[in-house]
């Protein structure tokens, strides 16, 4: 019963040519491959993954989904992404475990409230459910909150976004891999891309440690390694800094938090998984690196700050901390582009820590871009040239600076 002995995806030999090669067996790559096959009947596709699928950010993020960003360029994308979870669950016949618990984002100052009003008004204008709460209403939603004047930054209000929630990130990886495999896409794990070849100004092949693959289309969706691949193999420098982002979980507890709670001033979020663990994280050390190492300073800092607004968590125990790579751009918005630096080269990177929530919908549109060669309107604002044109997107967030200044 339950199809116990059916493999989710198959291991196949590497062919000498594909219609499209996708670098990176993370969510963006798998989703793009899936939609290439599903929507455009392009099934002769290879997903090349150096380690195993979901090894990078796809398996290390904390699975929060929401559509309450700041700009009208971003909001529709994330809104559509929210609608996709149930659809894909059904279609892939794999439970992605979308837990639509809603998100509560806390404000701790007048300025933060103002920033939230902008987000809320933008969301409402675009037909997305998001509302402002006063501190008492915040406490009604999340009884564990300390809304007194005791914390160093008392809660002044909150932004409540019912459509958001959490999804099981591993399930999405495995579900999409299953979907890809069923539709004929090849997933090559343990395979490294070592070069990209061009002919007559067009992409022509990809070199791997398992041989040369000819292809007219290459997508760079390698997450934390995408900028390095771009500069090393495509000759294209990107405005990307790769930082380690850390997250941690407590031992599992009986239900305590029924929403995703986050706080800008304290730079952390907390939510409880279906297994009962409280997941918390958010901060990044602001120096580029590729280590995924965790730091003593951060776990201590996080413990201190999350218990400022959720003091009951002092009695919980941290059980595990891990790190992943976040490819950050100067304006906190991704770089999605095509035919740079040569025809047939596509970019889907610079997602920072927004890569999970956007993965499926970006894959859908990126597949259309790769299939038709025309950039769908919804992706156009994310083109690389915005940086040299002095047109950063307005999706900002300041990096935390938790040491005292002179």
């Amino acid at each position, binding site marked *: 019963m339950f199809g116990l002995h059916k493999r989710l995806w198959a291991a196949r030999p590497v062919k000498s040519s594909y219609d499209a090669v996708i670098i990176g067996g993370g969510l963006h790559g798998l989703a793009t491959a899936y939609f290439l096959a599903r929507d455009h009947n392009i099934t002769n596709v290879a997903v090349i993954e150096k380690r195993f699928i979901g090894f990078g950010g796809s398996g290390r993020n904390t699975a929060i989904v929401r559509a309450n960003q700041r700009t009208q360029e971003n909001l529709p994308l994330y809104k559509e992404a929210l609608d996709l979870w149930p659809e894909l669950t059904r279609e892939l016949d794999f439970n992605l475990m979308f837990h639509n618990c809603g998100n509560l984002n806390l404000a701790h100052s007048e300025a933060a409230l103002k920033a939230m009003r902008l987000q809320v008004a933008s969301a409402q204008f675009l037909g997305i459910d998001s509302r402002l709460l006063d501190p008492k209403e915040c406490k009604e939603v999340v009884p564990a909150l300390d809304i007194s004047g005791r914390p160093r930054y008392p809660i002044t209000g909150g932004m409540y976004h019912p459509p958001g929630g959490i999804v099981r990130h591993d399930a999405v990886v495995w579900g999409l891999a299953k979907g890809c495999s069923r539709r004929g896409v090849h997933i090559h794990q343990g395979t490294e891309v070592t070069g990209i070849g061009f002919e007559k100004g067009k992409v022509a092949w990809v070199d791997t440690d398992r041989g040369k693959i000819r292809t007219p289309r290459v997508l760079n969706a390698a997450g934390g390694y995408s900028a390095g691949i771009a500069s090393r193999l495509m000759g294209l420098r990107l405005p990307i800094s790769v930082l380690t982002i850390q997250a941690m979980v407590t*031992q599992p507890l009986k239900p305590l938090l029924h929403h995703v709670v986050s706080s800008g001033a304290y730079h952390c979020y907390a939510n409880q998984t279906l297994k009962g663990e409280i997941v918390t994280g958010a901060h990044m050390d602001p120096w580029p690196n590729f280590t995924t190492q965790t730091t003593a300073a951060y776990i201590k800092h996080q413990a201190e700050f999350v218990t400022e607004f959720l003091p009951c968590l002092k009695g919980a125990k941290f059980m595990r901390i891990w790190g992943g790579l976040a490819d950050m751009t100067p304006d906190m918005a991704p770089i999605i582009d095509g035919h740079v630096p040569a025809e047939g080269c596509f970019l889907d990177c610079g997602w920072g820590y927004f890569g999970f929530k956007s993965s499926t919908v970006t894959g859908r549109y990126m597949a259309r871009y790769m299939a038709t060669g025309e950039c769908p309107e919804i992706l156009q604002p994310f083109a690389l040239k915005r940086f040299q044109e002095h047109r950063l997107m307005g999706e900002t967030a300041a990096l935390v600076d938790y040491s005292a200044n002179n």
Partner: protein
Amino acid sequence: MIRLNHLPTLRIKPGVPRSFTYGRRRLQGVEGDTVATALFANGVRVFGRSLKYHRPRGLYSLDGESSNTLVNVDGVPNVCAETTLLADGMCVASQNAFPGPDFDALGFMDALSWAMPAGFYYRMLHKPARLWPLAVPVIRKMAGVGTLAPDFQAPGRRDEIYPAADVCVIGAGVAGMSAALAAAEAGLRVVLFESRPWPGGAFEYRPGAARDGVACFQKTAELAAAVKASPHIRLFLNAPVIGVYSNGLVTAFQRGRSPHPFDERYIEVRAASVVVATGCIERPLLFEHNERPGVMQAGCAHRLARTWGILPGRTAVFSVGHDPGLEAAVDLFDLGVEIAAVADLRQDGLDPALVDALSRRRIPLLRGWSATKAHGRRRVAKVTLAGANGRFRKTLDCDLLVASAGFTPVTGPLTLAGAKLAFDERTGFFLPTCLPPRVHAAGRITGRQDWHAVAASGRLAGLCAIQDNGIDQTAAIGELADALGSLPGPVRGAKFVIAPDSGKKTFICFDEDATVKNVDQAMAKGFNVPELIKRFASVGTGPGQGGIPGHNLPLYVHQSGASPDAQPRPTTVRAPLTPTFLATYAGARLDMSKRTPIHDLQVAAGGRMERLGVWHRARRFSEDVHSREEILSVRTAVGILDASTLGKFRIFGPDAVKVLDRVYVGDMTRVPRTRAKYSAMCNEDGCLIDDGVIVRTGDNDYYLTTSTGRAGVTVEWIRYHTRFDDWDFGIVNLTDAYGVINLAGPEARAVLQRVTDADVSNEAFPFMGYREFAVGEVPLRAMRLGFVGELSFELHVPASWMAYVWNLLMDAGKDFGIRPFGLEAQNTLRLEKGHVIIGSESEQRTTLHDVGLGFLWHRDKPWARTVGDAALRQTEHQPGRLKLVGFRMADPSASPPRDGSVIVDRRIRGYVCTARYSVVLKEPVGLALVEDDSSAKGAPLAIYEDGCGGRLIQAVVTETPFYDPEGLRLRL
């Protein structure tokens, strides 16, 4: 239960009772008991129920490797009974069991386990789609262990320390103590961490003789005495190491410094060298019902007797794979436990002395045999043993099954330090192939089991640590390495994982009720690396992390043949190595913030203080959130503001002016001595990051102000942008040296004149002027600026004189109705003047041009290479940007839109930065960033406010300033 009370190895004081409650029962333990040993001594065998199937669980190990013995203590959930010392008056309660662990209403779940194969949730409950939302609350309720109430208040006190050390040794067993002593003999400062309440490790309780004939426990005690006597060793007992990082950083926490069970101290050590001597835990033997209460590890059974004086059972069967297991059988027999049989996984390699000891006691020894099934519902009653091929079987009655397949080295600290592990054929361990620099491993972790060899390997690591500290030890290291070579080396370890014919209820991970069958199911799905199986089948991701399955899972996966790897591959270990309270990590919770010199005066005057960056500032001085009285007093009489948080700097030296020209957009070559020059700083994007005034106070000597938020980074900004220029200048941060008083309003001059002899008339001290004079005989710096749009004096007062001068002005202003005002009033006042606050009227991408301050930019100084100059050039006439505009409401009687409301037509075109009702103008006014084609005067703005439900508010773009557009009031 009566304790064995004459053993020399006891760590309890049998005569000193400790009373506690367990559920409704009042029980008694003794001093030295942990919660677990006290419960066990009182006959408790079922400590709790398992996560998924609610199976009874009991004492299995003693160092917290599994969640079997998690209990609630004094209201705190998930306390590990094995590592928590019993305190008088403790209230202990079981978890995850109703009504209690012995009879649990959800016990029937065990019978349903067939319905929940590995990855169950991924493949079920989503068809039909409406089922899933209904299932979620049920799943959540069933999941999790231990309850934390939303209003839970954590008991206990915490602090933190950062001891300095040259060498940090992890584990105060025989190897760790030997390493510490060696390093201490060289005069190095050693920090030695031990997670148990006493030093000694694996040999601390063992009566067996070392090679020199002296009992292990006795030799170990001598070592411990030497450690305690050394002035160079700081021994932290009860202090589990939780993290090891590169560059010698080790983190730990310590409990037991006070009788209160939840007083804990966070510890961070940075050492030049780290020695890891964490020893081994036991590797569980996998067979049917291998986690029934009554099944326990050899060390657990042995230590219960030797350390706590508790006989672990009446009749025992042993199924072990190592000599210390045989030693335990012999010793427990001597202490009064009946041993029905000892099965050893090994055919050969058994210590002949121990084999002989067993036979002399007529204890049957079954070589190559193992347990295959434990019987009994809530605790072990019988056990089936079988030979290697499963053909021969026998079933024996017992109430204790000591089961252990081998040892697992505690390599967590090494992996966290960056060591890569590989499978070692001889020991069956994952051992480091290459240690990171200045990290050493010693003792049983390397596979050695002999007392002398363990001590020598510790001493060798100690010598290496001395070498790391720059003291040459080459000769001594060589000598000792040779000596170690003649002692017994790593012991051949059993690689046996699972008993033949073991059934469906063979648990590889206790915490998450994961069975060997679940692992098989995951492999069938195509998951073939342990790291992925771990995720898919939930193995080793529970409270005990990898403690129980960490070694067995990779061995099992490899033996199954599913893995593509040639050798078993370990799963990842992560910090914290021991689950640690968030409260403990948070430690002392230092909260360092800044207060202005007149902070207390502000509070006394009714100031509502709030945190703004590092500072405390007064937002307002009354209940009125709009601060109308404060606004009116500035507009009609005089107000006084504490603006001390402004950044203040001195820049001097021959190249000072070059520095200013580099960072300010204006021309700094001609700053007159008696006037303040207003200018701005941009970043490379040409975006506004700071504004302030610059004053020339002498030859090559300047005084400048920055916004509050930039004060902390201005020195680094200036030095950054001059780092390639070898310019001669000095810069001093004087932010805290001066308090700043903003005295503003039509009566400001009259007030000031009362307290100074200086001529402060408009002629003598005009708008934008800078003067130095005394107020109440206190010399200060004064400027006439106009942020709030009235006649105003900004007085920079030496910080120690600030309270004096403030009080002087308050007294002088009494007749004029002076009153302090706060940030809220200032915000509205400056808004009426159309003045910008960076961050409020600008966002990350807003350039100097966009906020209408482009006139500050001096384009003709390319030699200065001013920060942002290139971007200012390239964006100067760029269309399609968001521009800052003023607006009024189409209906002046309407309320002002809330800050952050968006401006829309068919899409979003901009947003409201700040809008307030102006008391003096008697209508709302506001500033907004809108797309440039909507920014012309008279352009209509449709505003969408949160919660408006689509009813737009109409406004019109207007010129600014709204108030006193000619600026006459500034020049009074």
